[in-house]
């Protein structure tokens, strides 16, 4: 895997990399989708490239939200309360 990851994708394939991103987002037209799928079936380098791109995006899409630091909610409500009291005066 690392061999392919570190390898420079040749010019022909490099032009396809933005199409991979659109493909992941379901933003490619049907005809282009078919062409890309054919290419992926024929080109192991691009297939590996696409699989790792997909895995990366899937993994960071699955990240949970960051928990608030301890006491942050309390401090937030205190700040809002202060803004309200300033607003009243």
């Amino acid at each position, binding site marked *: 895997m690392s061999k392919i990851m570190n390898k420079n994708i040749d010019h022909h394939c490099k032009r396809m990399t933005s199409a991979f991103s659109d493909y992941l987002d379901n933003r490619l037209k049907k005809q282009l989708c078919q062409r890309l799928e054919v290419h992926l079936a024929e080109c192991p380098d691009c297939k590996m490239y696409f699989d790792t791109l997909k895995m990366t995006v899937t993994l960071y899409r699955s990240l949970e939200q*960051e*928990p608030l630091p301890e006491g942050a909610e309390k401090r937030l409500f205190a700040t809002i309360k202060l803004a309200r009291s300033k607003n009243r005066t």
Partner: protein
Amino acid sequence: MNEDVLLQQAQAGNYRSFNQLVKIHQSRVYSVALRLLGTVSEAEDVLQETFIALYKNLHHFRGGSKLSTYLFRMATNFSLMKLRRSKRRGHDSTHLSLSAVEELPDTAVTPLESLLNSEFRALLDQHLQKLPDKDRAVIVLRDIEGLDGAQVAKILGLSLPAMKSKLHRSREFLRKNLSVYLKEN
């Protein structure tokens, strides 16, 4: 309770409804700020600035856009302003990001998931901080928070093609740098 109802009640001066809206959105606002800024204390500042801005502009908010989109826009703008100011002062926020990530409590379920999650999160945050500010914002809003491309372009003041180009470039950067993790796990 429905968010639109809460918003209307908050606009009519109901503090409890406003606080309810804060509770609903605070974690996502904080997450966006933390991933853009990389430091817990600055992200908390942005969290406060964002909800104070909402409070002050509550009566102007007509609900034409979703409240979450409005909050993301405010949080992103405040974060990018902070980054610009710290760059002008000559600070490099990159070195702060890792220690900030390490401070975070782990919320994953099993020990293995927990390890993978925290390891991956740390690695992702490390590489996110290496991206140019707006590129990072594109990834955070589009891929991590799941906004659609048009919303992200609007929030960041970019054309749709410019947003897409940043998205492709940043995904490729992350793919390249996170591949080692994918291979090991």
